[in-house]
């Protein structure tokens, strides 16, 4: 199939950037979206042009490294799918596809489609952990965890930190990301001692980093490749309110 892509090109953080149109001829419908960009890049290199920079790594939907706005939708039109797992068969011959980087102040563009998501690491460093230095752990069966709690914690913990939630959110909010981690750890008995400080510190760090607030629109969850549910945000709000009261 032949398509056209309009890609955001920005040579560096200080460049203003612009959309540039490229023709991609004879691409296999079985190619993934990133493989389509690979093919385009091979051509650009041989033509003496600068290839398009984009983040990617595992290409099996788990590392969270890839991510771009495809026709205005984070990770493209397929639900619960990362960009690397999106295949060209979901497009039609002759389509014009717009490709842009995640846009949020805390995710500045480094080059083309590559953004810096270090802000997510800072949110985790602020409290997204259970303090358990190596060697201090009790026997694993010392504390049984009810299966429903363990399962719910797992669901929340499947977040891959790709940033699609922020990219899709009209407010540029990272609430779904933060809420997923707060829920994962808060659902486990091991996570209780730090439950209050965790939610306060993570949330305030998220604000300090320049993410917007949540207006419960649900854009985040609709593009989340792992389907992290929106109600975890309610859980975070509740945890935060209780923690504030105790402070």
């Amino acid at each position, binding site marked *: 199939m032949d398509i056209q892509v309009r890609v955001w090109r920005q040579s560096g953080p200080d460049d203003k950037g612009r959309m540039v149109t490229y023709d991609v001829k004879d691409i*296999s419908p079985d190619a993934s979206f990133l493989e389509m960009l690979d093919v385009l890049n091979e051509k650009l290199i041989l033509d003496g042009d600068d290839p398009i920079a984009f983040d990617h790594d*595992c290409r099996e939907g788990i590392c969270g490294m890839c991510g771009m706005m495809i026709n205005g939708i984070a990770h493209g039109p397929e639900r619960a799918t990362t960009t690397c797992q999106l295949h060209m068969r979901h497009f039609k011959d002759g389509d014009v596809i717009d490709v842009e980087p995640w846009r949020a102040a805390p995710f500045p563009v480094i080059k083309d489609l590559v953004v*810096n998501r270090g802000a997510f690491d800072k949110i985790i460093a602020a409290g*997204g952990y259970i303090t358990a230095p190596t060697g201090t752990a009790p026997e*694993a069966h010392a504390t049984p965890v009810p299966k429903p709690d363990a399962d719910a914690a*797992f669901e929340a913990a499947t977040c891959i930190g790709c940033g699609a939630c922020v990219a899709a959110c009209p407010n540029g909010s990272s609430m779904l990301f933060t809420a997923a981690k707060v829920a994962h750890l808060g659902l486990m008995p*091991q996570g209780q001692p730090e439950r209050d400080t965790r939610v306060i510190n993570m949330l305030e760090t998220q604000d300090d980093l320049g993410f917007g607030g949540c207006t419960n629109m649900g854009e985040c969850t609709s593009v989340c490749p792992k389907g992290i549910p929106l109600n975890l945000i309610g859980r975070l709000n509740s945890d935060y309110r209780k923690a504030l009261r105790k402070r």
Partner: protein
Amino acid sequence: MTSFWNEGDPIVDEAAPDGPIETRWDRRKFAAKLVNPANRRKLSVIVVGTGLAGGSAAATLAEAGYKVRSYCYQDSPRRAHSIAAQGGINAAKNYRNDGDSIYRLFYDTVKGGDFRARESNVYRLAQVSVNIIDQCVAQGVPFAREYGGLLDNRSFGGTQVSRTFYARGQTGQQLLLGAYQAMERQIGLGNIEMNARHEMLELIIVDGKARGIVVRDMITGEISTDLADAVVLASGGYGNVFFLSTNAKGCNVTATWRAHRKGALFANPCYTQIHPTCIPESGTHQSKLTLMSESLRNDGRVWVPRGQGDNRPASNIPEEERDYYLERIYPSFGNLVPRDIASRAAKNVCDEGRGVGPGGLGVYLDFADAISRLGRAAVEAKYGNLFEMYQRITGEDPYETPMRIYPAVHYTMGGLWVDYDLQSTIPGLFVVGEANFSDHGANRLGASALMQGLADGYFVLPHTLANYLASGPYEKISEDHAEVVAARQQVEERITKLLSINGDRTVDSFHRELGHIMWEYCGMERTEEGLTKAIDLIRALRDEFWTRVKVPGTGEQLNQNLEKAGRVADFLELGELMCIDALHRAESAGGHFRAESQTPDGEALRHDDEYSYVGAWEFGGTGQAPTLHKEQLDFEYVHPSTRSYK
């Protein structure tokens, strides 16, 4: 033939304690020197890589009070490829009360490694496996649980006990996030300085000791040096030498290869694990392969058409024209033969021109019988998520048409040679996880990679590294020390060279071609003739690379092609060493199958009298013969026997 390598002196693991195997690790830990807590903050450690081994090591060392500086090429330490491990992690907890024990895990692992691993290391691995589970649960890793609230287990990879702990099909992700979170806590406390998007390009050795690394900031292109008291490499395996593998695109051998060039021995490079059930290539655009759980073979039947070049859709091929070749060749095990057998059989039928799908590189895995026997609902309950994944990638519905599968490179057992302390042949250079060679012998069992990574990082390295650091802090070195300047210059010159060739072939085209050579001649089945040919082809390709590669852009910016070019240049050297190692090892063992060494019915044939050793290679110069140092393997507890599937 010996002109390909030189025979050197044998090498001995001097750190390994002797005596009863059960107490070796305890005695080693007791003998190890300790560092006073007050002195620890004066000691600095560089950790390259943030996967299970590197992440857990960095967190644990920082908790102990050392100054840690971590590096990874990804944009966050949470993305290392450990995250993609699906199945689970083994531990000798014996929670099932099914007769498991440390000794049994040790036994299974040595045997599974086809008697090419060190007993001492493997025993220690089995010992600390139980601590790993405790540690991860304390961190909040959401392992699968039973209704009573206790941890669930499943069986894996043909063992007779259920000792695999898991978190749905995302065990690696959950374990890595546990280590990552512990790491982020230390980053927040200022005990770890994290440098994401930094790639190690050279090792700095001063007075014979590893004292630092040269790194490139992948955003600005800035080359800088980092000096410390010790360096830990946790940079993963080298499966990407095959271009197509289940590894992440960024996985590379550069860190370990640079250390090898500086004197660290590289052990058993030819031991690669090839997984039989991956989704096959769909065309020339293919950039990586995706693994699907082996459990599919429990109910799926593997077949190809009887005739060559049969292009009919599967449903149009009548029953009598189908060859259920595994059931035919291995009537007793059928579709459940071990990984290596299944992989090789698939290659053979495809080589005969009977493969299916694009390029004829695929075989059918058919669930039609299972669906008619068990009903669609039962099949869906068991394999629903795998079928969904298959459909997402291929666009085909496996309930209607048979799946197509093909083997793919998955894991590399070889790596830098380390002693019992996980120290390489360069003092102060420690190697953990898949990057070292230590615990899996010639073949790794399922759910053991996660175990080894975390064992090394959480429980082994922190003790043995302390023993080394106890002799420090080492003499302070300045940035303008001759060795530091030289290492930095090497890196800069290499980058300048890569950018200046400005030829007419892309980096990927070289990588693909190298991958084809490796897959064809150093893949599932190797022969003397093929390997000799491959060495010639690789050398020619390497020469061509250095004259015709085109790397666009400059070094002072984010330049993904420059990154790739450096990695491929190293793969082009590693590939040659892999072929030489495979050529010298004229036996079949684990992931290494030499066509010349098989039983009359086509099974792998080891030669314990000749090859019961670790092949540790010393770099001899690019294109020059490397030197082989043999570390003899002694089996006091588990006596070598022939694996049998009959």
